[in-house]
C-alpha cells in the first residue's frame, strides 16, 4: 500500500486547486447554477482545455488515479458543470466502444470542451438495469428510429449531442438487447423538459419521438453494449466518488473551522465532546471513502479486477457524503442553514450524487452478485476463495 502522491500528481492537484479556488466564490456558483445553462460554460471550457478530463482514457496520458485527483478538487470547489456525465462518462464509453474514426470526430472535441454531450441512460423507474431501459431504437433504412423517454439527463438543455442507451431488440431483461447511439440534440422529434433537482444540474426529461439517425450513429457493437456500459459506468462511479469525497472533506473543513471559532458557554463549541465526536466520526467516514477510492482507482489503472473495489467505494461514499453534510449542519447550528453559507452547496450535491450511477443498495447488491451470483444472472467474474488481500 503506497499512499503517497508522486511530484507530478502533487503538482497536478495544486494546479487544479489553484484554478478552481479563483473561480468558485459562493455567489458566482449560485449565479452559474441559476443561469440558463446551469453552469459557467466559459469556465468549464477553460478547465477542459487544460486536458484535465482526459485522464484515464485509452490513448491519453495519466490514469484514473489522476482523474480522481482532479475530480476531488472539483468536488471541493463545488463547481457545477458536465464534469461527470458529459465528460467522464461519455468519454469512458467512447474510449471503450468507439472506432478510430468516431474517436477522432467525437471524443477529442468532447474532452477539450468544444462540444457538449450528455449521456442518457435512466428512465421512469430510475434504475441502472437493462430491464429498466424501455426506449426503443428500431432499425430503419440502415439507420435507427428512436422512441421513448429518458430522464434525469444532466445539462440536457445545453447539450449538442446525446449518447443514448437504447433497446434495439426484444428479449428477456435485455442485457444483450442494448445499443449506444449518438443523437444530435437539435434533431426533429426531440423534446426537452427541465427536471430541476435540489441541486440544479440542468437535468431534463428528454423525449424522443420517432427520431431518425443514420447507421454511423451506432457506437460499439449492435445489441451488445450493456456489459461494457456496466463496466465503464463502474469506472465512472469511482470518478464520481472522488468528487463526492472532495465535497465531503470540504463540508467537514467548514464545520471544523466553525467549531473552532464559534463560542458558546465561554468556549469554542468544538470543545464540547458531542460536537468533537461527531466531527471525528466524519473524519473516519471520509478517510474510509478516500482509501476505498484510491484502491479502486489503482486497481483500474493496474488492470486488476476492480468490480468489488469500485462498488465498495460507491456504497461507502453514497452514505458518507450525505452523512457528513448532515453532521456539518448540526455543528454549524442555525447559520449553516442560510443560503449565504457554502455548506448547502455540498448538502444539495450529496443528495444527487448519492443516487447517481447506483445508490448504496445497488452497489451492495452488485457485490453480493460477485460472491453469490443469482440464478439467471451472468457472473462476469469469479472472486476466488479469499478476497482479503
Amino acid at each position: 500500500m503506497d499512499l503517497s502522491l508522486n511530484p507530478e500528481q502533487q503538482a497536478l492537484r495544486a494546479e487544479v486547486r489553484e484554478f478552481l479556488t479563483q473561480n468558485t466564490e459562493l455567489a458566482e456558483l449560485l449565479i452559474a447554477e441559476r443561469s440558463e445553462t446551469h453552469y459557467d460554460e466559459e469556465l468549464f471550457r477553460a478547465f477542459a482545455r487544460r486536458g484535465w478530463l482526459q485522464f484515464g482514457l485509452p490513448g491519453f496520458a495519466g490514469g484514473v488515479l489522476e482523474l480522481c485527483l482532479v475530480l476531488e478538487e472539483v468536488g471541493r470547489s463545488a463547481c457545477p458543470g458536465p464534469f461527470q456525465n458529459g465528460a467522464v462518462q461519455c468519454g469512458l464509453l467512447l474510449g471503450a466502444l468507439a472506432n478510430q474514426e468516431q474517436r477522432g470526430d467525437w471524443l477529442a472535441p468532447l474532452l477539450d470542451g468544444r462540444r457538449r454531450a450528455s449521456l442518457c441512460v435512466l428512465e421512469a423507474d430510475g434504475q441502472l438495469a437493462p430491464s429498466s431501459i424501455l426506449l426503443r431504437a428500431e432499425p430503419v433504412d440502415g439507420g435507427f428510429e428512436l422512441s421513448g423517454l429518458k430522464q434525469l439527463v444532466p445539462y440536457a438543455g445545453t447539450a449538442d449531442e446525446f449518447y443514448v442507451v437504447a433497446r434495439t431488440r426484444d428479449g428477456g431483461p435485455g442485457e444483450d438487447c442494448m445499443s449506444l447511439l449518438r443523437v444530435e440534440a437539435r434533431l426533429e422529434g426531440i423534446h426537452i423538459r427541465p427536471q430541476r433537482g435540489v441541486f440544479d444540474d440542468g437535468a431534463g426529461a428528454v423525449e424522443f419521438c420517432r427520431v431518425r439517425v443514420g447507421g454511423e450513429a451506432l457506437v460499439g457493437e449492435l445489441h451488445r453494449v450493456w456489459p461494457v456500459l456496466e463496466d465503464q459506468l463502474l469506472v465512472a462511479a469511482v470518478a464520481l466518488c472522488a468528487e463526492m469525497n472532495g465535497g465531503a472533506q470540504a463540508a467537514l473543513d467548514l464545520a471544523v473551522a466553525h467549531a473552532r471559532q464559534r463560542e458558546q458557554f465561554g468556549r469554542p463549541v468544538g470543545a464540547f465532546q458531542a460536537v468533537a465526536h461527531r466531527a471525528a466520526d466524519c473524519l473516519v467516514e471520509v478517510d474510509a471513502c478516500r482509501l476505498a477510492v484510491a484502491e479502486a482507482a489503482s486497481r483500474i489503472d493496474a488492470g486488476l479486477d476492480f468490480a468489488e473495489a469500485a462498488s465498495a467505494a460507491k456504497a461507502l461514499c453514497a452514505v458518507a457524503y450525505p452523512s457528513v453534510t448532515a453532521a456539518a449542519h448540526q455543528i454549524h447550528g442555525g447559520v449553516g442553514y442560510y443560503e449565504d453559507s457554502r455548506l448547502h452547496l455540498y448538502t444539495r450535491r450529496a443528495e444527487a450524487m448519492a443516487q447517481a450511477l447506483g445508490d448504496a443498495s445497488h452497489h451492495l447488491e452488485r457485490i453480493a452478485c460477485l460472491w453469490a451470483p443469482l440464478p439467471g444472472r451472468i457472473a462476469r467474474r469469479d472472486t476466488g476463495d479469499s478476497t482479503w488481500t
Partner: protein
Amino acid sequence: MALGPVEPANQPMGHEPRNQESRPVDFSFDAEVEAFREEVRGFFREELSEERTRGHFDPRDLTGFDEAFERAHQRRAGERGYLGISAPSEFGGGGRPLSFQAAFGFEAAYHEAPCVDTAMTLVGAVMQGFGSAEQKVEYLPQMIRGEILMSIGYSEATAGSDLSGIAMRARLLDDGFELEGTKTLVTGAHKAEVMCLIARTDPDVPTRQGSSLFLVDLSLPGVEIERRATLNGWTLCDVHFRGVHVERKALLGELHGGWQQMAAALTSERSQLFHVGWAARDVDDLIQHCRSHERGGRLLCEDPFVRRELSRLRVEVHVALRFAKRVIWLQDQGRIPGHEAATAKLYATELLQRVAATGSSILGPHAALARGAHLAPLGGRMGWARLERIHGTISVGSNELQRSAIAQMGLGMPRNA
C-alpha cells in the same frame, strides 16, 4: 389520554409488573380529543383543498403559502375556537386540556397547514404566564381569534444555545425603553405584527439577572427587517433595532426577570406533536406511493427492502407519538415534564430526518428532484424534506443539549459545566 405510570428512566426493564391489575395501557387520546381531532381534520381538508389554495403558494415563506392565505386561514381556525382551544375561557379560549392543543398541532402539521407557528403557539405561554392584565386583554383575544401574527426574538449572532450571550440592550428611559441590537434567525418576522424578545436591561449584572422580555410592535420607527434566504428557498429574518423607542407597557412581566420567565415559558406545551404530524404525513405518502408505483415490473410495496423500511418507519412514528403523548399526559396532570420532553423533541426531529433519508432511498434518483419538478415522485416532497428536516435538530434547543438534558434529568448524570 390514559397512560400507565411513567417509568423512571433508570429503572431496568423486565422487573415484575408493579401493578398486576392495571388495565392495558390505552395510547389513544380520550374520546373527546379524538372527536375534536376528527372535526379539525375535516376543517383542514376543506381549507387546504386545491380550489382554496390555488394561486396562494409562496416558496419564500416557511409555510409555503402567501401571507394573505395564512392570515385568512388562521382567522377561520380562530373563529372556530381552535387556536386557543386550551387557553383560558376568560379571553375567549376553549379551556380544554393541553391534549386538545397538541392534537390540533398534529393535524395542522399533517395537513401542512400554515397554522403551526401561530401567535398562540409561539407567544401564548409567556403571555398567559407573565403578561399584565392589560396586555392579556389587549393581545390574547386577538391571538386566540387568529387576528395577529407574532415572532420570537431570543437568538442573536453571539447567542444561540447559550442565550446568556445576548448583546441586545433595552435602556431604561423615563417614559419607556430604547432598544438597540439585532435578533437573528427569527421565523416569520417579516409578516408579524409583534415580536416577543429578550434584551438586557441591566448591563452591569449577568444576563440571567439583568434581562427582560418585551412585546415589541414591529412597525415602530427604527425597526428594520431583513429577510435572509435559507438553503431551502424560504426566508428567516434578521431584525435590527436602532434606537427603537417603546413605551413602558411593552415590558412583559418583571423588569430584570426575563430570563426566568423565558425559561418557564419554554416548559409550556412541549410535546412537539406537530413534528410527529409531519413524519406521519411523510410516511403515509410514501406508503401510498409504494402501493401504486412499480419498479422493475413489480409494485414497490412488494420489494422486501421497501416493506421493511416502511414498516420500521411506521413503528418509529408510533414511538414518537407515544413520547409526545407522555409529555401531554404529564402536563395535563399539572406536572412539568423533564427528560420526557427532551426525549420527545430529540426523537421526533431525528425521526423526521430518517424518514426523509429512507424515503429518498426508496424513491431512487428521482427523489433528489425539487418541489414541483417535472415527473418528481410525491411532487418532489422528499428532496424538499431532505433539506427541510435539517433544522429541526438545531432549533428550539439543539439535540446535543437535549441529550445532555436526558442524561442529567433522566439518568442523574453529573453536569459538565
